[in-house]
C-alpha cells in the first residue's frame, strides 16, 4: 500500500470499530438493562416512548399583590403602635401610597417599616409615604416562589407514583415537567392545579352588619363557603395555624361524618391550636382551603392533642388526594398550565416503526443510486454511509442525547446529505483524472481540492443546526442534535474512511488507471 501511513489506518479503523461497538446498546435496546455497557443507549423522547410534557407557570402577579397587601397591613399596624393617623392607603400596581394626617411620625414609620421589609424602595413626599415593590424585591419573591414551587411539585409528583419524572425550572417563572409513561395526565394536573393553602381561622359571628354590607373591617375577611356561594363567613384575617404546621395527613373514614382527612400538627402547631381552642370555646373554627371555607365546626372543647379531622362532602378519592396535597405542602402561588403535550405509547411505537422503515428505504435507495452512478467508488461511499449511521447512533447513545421524532427525520435527512462529501470528492477525482495520469496523484488531488469545499459547506449547515438548538425546544432540539452529529460524522467518514477505503481498493486491485 503506497503512501498510506500506518498510524492513519490505525486511527480510521479504531474510530470505525468504536462507532460500531458503541452503537450496539442502542440497537439491542434492552430497556431495563443494568449492564454498564448496555446502559449507553439512546434515550427516547416522550414523543417516541409515550408520556406527558407539561409547562407550568407560577402566577407571580398574585404573589406581588399579596405582598402589597402585606405592606398595607404592616403600615397600619406600625402607625397604630406609633399613634399616627392614616388618611388614606392606595394600592397600585407596584406601589402602596400611604397618606398620613400629619408628617410628625412619618420618618419613624418609614424606618420601622424598613426594618421589616429590607430591600423595598421607600420615598417620603410631604405627608405621603410611597412604598415601592421594586424589581429587585420582585426578583427575590420570584426566586423563592419558584424554588418552593419546584419542591412542592416534586413532592406531589412523587406521591402520585410517577416513575422517573423530570422536573426543572424553565426560564424565569416556569416549571417544566416530563412524565414518561404517563399517557393521561389528568390526575397529575388535578394534583398540581390546587395551591392547597390550608389555614384555620376563628369565625366572627357577632358582627353581622359587616357580612350584610359585604365589607370586612380591618383585621377581618369575608370568605365564601365551598359548596354554597350564598353562605359567607366573617373570619379573623390572622390564621390560628396553617398547613405549614402539619406533619401528617391521610384519608380516613368517620362513622358519622363519612370520608374525611385526619391530620396531625407539629409541636408548635399543636400548642397554638390548643391555646386558641381553649380560649374560644363556643365559637366556630373555619377550615379554609385555597380561599374557600370547607367546614366551620363549633369548638366544643379545647383540642390540645395536636390532631384532628377535616370533614366535608368528600368521596374516598377526594379525601385521599387532599391528604396528598396537605402532606406535600402548599404552593406559594397557583400554577397555570401553559403548554401540554401527551403522546400515547401506541403512537410513539408507530412513529419509531415508521422512522425505521423510512431510514432503511432511504438508505437502500441512496446506496443503489451511488453504485449506479459511481460503481465501485459508489460502493465504497456506501460503506462510509453505513458506518456514518452507526457513528451517529453510538454518539447519541454515549452522550445521552434524546432521540425524538424530528430527530429520526434528521437521521433520514443526514443519510441523503452525508453522501454529499463523497460526491464532492469523486467529482474532483473525475476532473483530476482528465489532467493527471498517475492514479495516486489523481486521488490525492481529488481529496485535497475537495477538502475546503467540504468544510465550508458543512460549517454552514452546522451554523443552522446550532441556532436551531439554541432557539428550539424539546423535539426540535432532537432534530438539531441528530443533524449536527450527522454532519460531523459525515465529514469524518468522507475525508478519512472513504479516503482509506479508496487507497485500499486501489492498492489491492492494483489499478494503473482510473476512470470514474
Amino acid at each position, binding site marked *: 500500500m503506497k503512501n498510506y501511513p500506518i498510524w492513519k489506518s490505525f486511527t480510521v479503523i479504531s474510530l470505525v470499530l468504536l462507532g460500531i461497538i458503541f452503537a450496539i446498546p442502542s440497537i439491542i435496546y434492552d430497556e431495563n438493562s443494568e449492564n454498564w455497557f448496555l446502559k449507553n443507549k439512546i434515550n427516547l423522547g416522550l414523543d417516541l416512548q409515550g408520556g406527558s410534557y407539561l409547562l407550568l407557570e407560577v402566577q407571580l402577579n398574585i404573589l406581588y399583590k399579596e405582598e402589597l397587601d402585606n405592606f398595607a397591613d404592616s403600615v397600619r399596624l406600625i402607625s397604630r403602635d406609633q399613634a399616627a393617623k392614616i388618611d388614606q392607603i392606595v394600592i397600585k400596581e407596584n406601589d402602596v401610597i400611604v397618606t398620613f394626617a400629619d408628617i410628625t411620625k412619618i420618618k419613624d414609620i418609614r424606618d420601622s417599616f424598613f426594618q421589616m421589609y429590607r430591600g423595598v424602595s421607600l420615598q417620603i413626599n410631604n405627608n405621603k409615604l410611597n412604598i415601592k415593590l421594586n424589581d429587585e424585591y420582585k426578583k427575590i419573591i420570584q426566586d423563592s416562589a419558584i424554588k418552593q414551587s419546584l419542591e412542592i411539585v416534586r413532592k406531589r409528583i412523587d406521591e402520585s407514583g410517577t416513575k422517573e419524572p423530570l422536573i426543572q425550572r424553565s426560564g424565569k417563572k416556569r416549571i417544566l415537567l416530563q412524565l414518561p409513561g404517563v399517557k393521561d395526565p389528568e390526575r397529575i394536573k388535578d394534583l398540581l392545579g390546587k395551591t392547597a393553602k390550608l389555614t384555620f381561622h376563628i369565625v366572627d359571628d357577632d358582627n353581622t352588619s359587616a357580612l350584610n354590607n359585604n365589607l370586612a373591617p380591618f383585621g377581618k375577611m369575608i370568605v365564601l363557603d365551598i359548596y354554597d356561594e350564598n353562605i359567607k363567613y366573617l373570619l379573623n384575617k390572622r390564621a390560628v395555624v396553617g398547613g405549614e404546621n402539619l406533619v401528617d395527613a391521610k384519608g380516613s373514614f368517620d362513622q358519622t361524618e363519612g370520608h374525611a382527612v385526619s391530620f396531625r400538627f407539629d409541636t408548635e402547631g399543636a400548642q397554638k391550636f390548643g391555646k386558641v381552642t381553649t380560649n374560644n370555646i363556643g365559637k366556630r373554627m373555619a377550615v379554609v382551603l385555597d380561599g374557600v371555607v370547607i367546614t366551620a365546626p363549633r369548638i366544643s372543647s379545647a383540642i390540645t392533642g395536636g390532631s384532628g379531622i377535616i370533614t366535608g362532602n368528600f368521596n374516598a378519592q377526594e379525601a385521599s388526594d387532599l391528604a396528598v396535597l396537605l402532606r406535600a405542602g402548599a404552593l406559594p402561588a397557583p400554577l397555570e398550565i401553559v403548554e401540554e403535550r401527551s403522546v400515547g405509547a401506541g403512537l410513539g411505537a408507530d412513529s419509531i416503526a415508521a422512522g425505521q422503515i423510512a431510514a432503511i428505504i432511504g438508505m437502500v435507495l441512496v446506496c443503489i443510486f451511488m453504485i449506479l452512478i459511481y460503481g465501485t467508488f459508489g460502493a465504497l461511499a456506501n460503506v462510509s454511509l453505513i458506518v456514518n449511521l452507526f457513528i451517529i447512533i453510538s454518539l447519541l447513545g454515549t452522550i445521552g442525547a434524546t432521540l425524538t421524532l424530528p430527530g429520526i427525520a434528521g437521521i433520514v435527512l443526514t443519510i441523503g*446529505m452525508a453522501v454529499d462529501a463523497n460526491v464532492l470528492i469523486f467529482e474532483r477525482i473525475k476532473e483530476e483524472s482528465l489532467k493527471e495520469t498517475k492514479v495516486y496523484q489523481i486521488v490525492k488531488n481529488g481529496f485535497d481540492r475537495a477538502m475546503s469545499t467540504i468544510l465550508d459547506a458543512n460549517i454552514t449547515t452546522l451554523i*443552522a443546526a446550532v441556532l436551531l438548538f439554541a432557539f428550539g425546544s424539546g423535539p426540535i432540539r432532537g432534530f438539531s442534535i441528530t443533524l449536527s452529529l450527522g454532519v460531523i460524522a459525515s465529514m469524518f467518514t468522507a475525508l478519512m474512511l472513504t479516503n482509506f477505503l479508496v487507497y485500499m481498493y486501489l492498492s489491492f486491485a492494483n489499478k494503473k488507471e482510473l476512470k470514474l
Partner: protein
Amino acid sequence: MFGLNKIIPVEPNINFLGLRRNFLIFSILAILISIGLLSIKGLNLGIDFKGGTLIEVSTKNTSIGELREILSSSYSDVSLQEFGNENVILIRLQNKSNQESIETVNSVKNLIQDKVVEFRRSEFVGPTISSELLFRGFQAVSFALIAILIYIWLRFEWQFGFGAVVALTHDVLFTLGLLSILNVEFSLATIAAILTIAGYSINDTVVIFDRVRENLRKYKKLELVDLFNLSVNNTLSRTIMTSLTTLLALVSLFIFGGEVIRPFALTMIIGVIIGTYSSVFIAVPTLLIFKFRPQDEDD
C-alpha cells in the same frame, strides 16, 4: 469500472447565465406572489403558533361525520380531520384561556369516550406560549441568516455573502409561499425544516462559489459571464447528485415516515428543489452586479 455517470457529461457546457433574465423574472414573480399570499392568505398555522388544543384518536365503528356531530353540538369552533387513515381522527379546538382548555380536553374525551379505541395524543398550547414560540422561530431564522452571512463574508469576499443571502431569502420566501398555496400546516417542525433548507441551500451555493473563486484565480482573462458559466458547469454533476440523494431520502421519509412527520418532509422536499434552483439561477447571477475585475467595467 462501470457507471451511469456518463449521463452527465464530465465537461458540460450549458449556458445557464444566458437564461438568467428569464429565471430572474420567474423568481421575482414567484417572490411577489409569495409575499402577496403570505400577507393575504397567510400560513396554515398549527397549534404551536396559534395556540389551542389538538387531540388525536383512533376510533372504532364510527365515522368522522358522527364524531363531528357529537362534538359540534358542544363546540362551535371544533374541526375534525382524518389523519393517515379513516380510523385515525384529529380534533382541533381553539381555546381562549389556559384554564378553559384543561376543561375542554376533559369534556371532549368524555363525549367521545365510547367511540374511541385509543387517545393517541393530546396537545395544548396556551396563547402566551404560542406567541413566544413564533417569536423564537423568527429569531432563529433571522439569526441563522445573519450568522451564515457573516461566515460567508469571512471565508469569501463580501459580494459572495450578498449573493448567498439574496438566494437564501429567495428560498425562504418562495418555500413559505408554496406552503401557503398547498396549505401545509406550519409548526415548530416547519421552522426546523426552513432552517435546514437555509443550511442546505447555502451549502449548495458555497460549493459553486468556491469554484467561482478558484476559477477567478485560474482564468484571469475570461469574461465574468463565461467564468460563472464554467463554474456552474464544473459543479453541475455534484449539484444534481447531492440534490437527488437528499431527495431520495426525503421522499422515503415523506412516504414511509408517518403522518406526523409528513409536513416536515414535504417542506424539505420543496426547499431542496428551490435551494438547488436558486444556487444556480439566483446566487451566481447576483454576483454579476459586482465588478470583480477592473477590465469588466464595460461588461
